[in-house]
């Protein structure tokens, strides 16, 4: 019986930690000034909070067939989330015309077609 309560406590700790990360990333989303910072804040909730929530649910589920699917969810999200963050920052790089004013781009390579022509 006490083992069940310990398992519930572990599950609650992981779920509440994941919730904390989600709320922190939302605060970052609202408060940061530049879009690149906001991408960072959103990507934190993409990876870390999904892992914490999934570990919490895995503890609650136990050894079951669903556990492997939840591991697959985390694996796929960890593979795809850096790619989408990268695409978002590439888009921000093209959309923001005065990016040089607040980012140090002294050693940045220019990946636009304009630079390819030169």
């Amino acid at each position: 019986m006490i083992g069940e309560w310990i398992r519930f406590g572990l599950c609650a700790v992981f779920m509440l930690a994941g919730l904390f990360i989600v709320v922190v990333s939302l605060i970052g989303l609202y408060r940061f000034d530049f879009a690149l910072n906001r991408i960072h804040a959103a990507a934190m909730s993409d990876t870390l909070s999904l892992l914490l929530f999934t570990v919490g649910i895995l503890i609650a589920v136990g050894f079951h067939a669903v556990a492997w699917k939840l591991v697959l969810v985390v694996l796929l999200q960890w593979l795809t989330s850096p790619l989408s963050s990268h695409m978002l920052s590439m888009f921000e790089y093209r959309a923001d015309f005065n990016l040089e004013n607040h980012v140090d781009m002294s050693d940045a390579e220019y990946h636009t077609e304009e630079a390819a022509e030169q």
Partner: protein
Amino acid sequence: MELTVQQCYHYLFWGVLTVLALCVIAVLVYILRSRLTVDRIIGINLIGTLVVIIICALGYVLDEEYLADIAVIYVVMSFIAVMVLCKIYIGLYDRRRKEKKHDR
């Protein structure tokens, strides 16, 4: 009245699901308030992740195993949506920049 473990799981999961739903509403408000297109796509990406978490938790609460499969599909679909939107807008901005260069 003694509180059983099952009831505690029930309260924990429904409480977490409620807060996550409020977070999704907060992200929607963020999308509506923001001016930049980048911010809107960031919001779409974040809502995709939050919905995946909600689906996983619901799969445990409602005891429906197939919801985990739907979560897998949703991860890939949200990735494709963000990727396609970014590709479209990157092409648009590149073309706009090229036209501006021709005008000069």
